[in-house]
């Protein structure tokens, strides 16, 4: 690993017309990204869709969610409820993100309606408008960590570390999510949302937000009516007390790495993880692989990793190791926002695409 500083202008993350023009002028927007050469037959086999793995995992997920939720209800008022609240919270507030993501890509299941059903359910759990966020994520894949274009940059430079820490209990995310849902439900799409959601989709975004808001309003009304926090612990609350695993794994995707480049090996991180985290995260720890080949379903990412690892930086061997790399980078970026971690490529890899990302 080497550390790099560059000399580029201060970053403006607003998705404005001016920033879009700048990104296009630099060749960073809608650019051609580096891809590892792979045999067509091999990648076709990995891209092939199956219902089986996602049905199995979804039944396990919903089963555990149901059982732990029933245990929370049954043990409410006792200290014995705590472990079940923690389990339910992670299954709701963290696992939802990976289901939202994979089903949004349409790769989790072979059958389209299954992708759509889980996508809408998970969108509600993660408090995201299923319409606006589908377009936001398409932009994230077009312009990954391109300043002024990507709407899903989790940690902007210089890093707001207080915000990062508070988001482990969803403080800012829930605030911004609820604000967006309420505005959408009132018929208003914010400026950045209008920049990536086609006008023809605005009506669908408003309708979806209204459904979410009605369910949250009913939950709050029920809690008040019965004089108990239980409805909020079961619905909505887990997006705060159970989202820590989503943050823990999600920050590693791009945190501390390069921005304004067109080579996913420079701006994305693959981290080897334990089986429980990989189940919750649906294998998105293979994040360089996912960005290079987003059509490969979650269950085939380990095989994709084996196929192309000769061309990628070595993966971080653990979550802990990833944080040992990322946290010092965040701290360095407080003093120098141009700093980023640049990982060494193995001798078998093609060089980074310097021609595409030098500014």
């Amino acid at each position, binding site marked *: 690993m080497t550390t790099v500083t560059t000399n580029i202008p201060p970053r403006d993350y607003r998705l404005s017309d001016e920033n879009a023009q700048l990104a296009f002028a630099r060749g960073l927007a*809608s650019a051609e990204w580096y891809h590892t050469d792979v045999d067509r037959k091999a990648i076709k086999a990995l*891209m092939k869709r199956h219902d089986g793995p996602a049905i199995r995992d979804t039944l396990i997920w919903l089963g555990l969610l149901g059982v732990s939720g029933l245990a929370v209800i049954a043990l409410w008022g006792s200290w014995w409820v705590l472990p079940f609240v923690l389990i339910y919270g992670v299954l709701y507030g963290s696992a939802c993100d990976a289901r939202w993501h994979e089903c949004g890509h*349409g790769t989790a299941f072979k059958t*389209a309606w299954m992708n759509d059903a889980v996508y809408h359910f998970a969108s509600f759990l993660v408090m995201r408008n299923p319409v606006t966020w589908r*377009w936001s994520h*398409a932009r994230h894949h077009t312009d990954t960590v391109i300043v002024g274009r990507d709407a899903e940059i989790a940690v902007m430079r210089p890093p707001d570390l207080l915000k990062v820490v508070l988001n482990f209990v969803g403080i800012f995310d829930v605030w911004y999510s609820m604000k967006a849902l309420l505005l959408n439900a009132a018929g208003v799409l914010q400026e950045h949302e209008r920049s990536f959601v*086609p006008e023809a*989709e605005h009506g669908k975004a408003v309708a979806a937000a209204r459904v979410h808001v009605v369910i949250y309003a009913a939950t709050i009304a029920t809690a008040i009516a019965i004089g108990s926090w239980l409805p909020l612990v079961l619905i909505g609350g887990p997006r705060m007390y159970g989202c820590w695993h989503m943050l823990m794994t999600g920050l590693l995707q791009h945190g501390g790495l390069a921005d304004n480049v067109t080579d996913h090996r420079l701006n994305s991180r693959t981290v080897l993880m334990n089986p429980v985290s990989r189940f919750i995260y649906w294998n998105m720890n293979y994040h360089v692989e996912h960005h290079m080949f987003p*059509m490969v379903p979650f269950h085939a990412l380990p095989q994709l990793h084996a196929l192309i690892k000769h061309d990628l930086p070595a993966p971080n061997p653990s979550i802990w190791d990833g944080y040992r790399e990322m946290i010092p980078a965040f701290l360095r970026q407080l003093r120098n926002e141009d700093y980023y971690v640049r990982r060494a490529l193995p001798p078998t890899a093609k060089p980074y695409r310097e021609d595409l990302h030098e500014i």
Partner: protein
Amino acid sequence: MSDWIDVCATDDIEEEDVIRFDHGARSFAIYHSPEGEFFATDGLCTHEQVHLADGLVMDHIIECPKHNGQFNYTTGKATRLPACDHLGTYPVRVEGDRVQIQLSE
């Protein structure tokens, strides 16, 4: 006026697969359906100009490799977001063992 342009041999494209074909300044995607028929569309996705030849053919659907937008390649119709605009389609014929595409001048 239109011409039939030679593209490739029939066995250059596996069934349920796609290849890229460039002609002049234009780029096309040529498909071999599971039923053994051949089809041709514009090569670039209407959403973000990514080449569809790197995508996945499933039955009569081509899925864009970048954002998973889908099209029916027999009609060009966009069938899954973020693809909204349809693809252009072109007549294809097989002469002997050669696949040919008809392009308007």
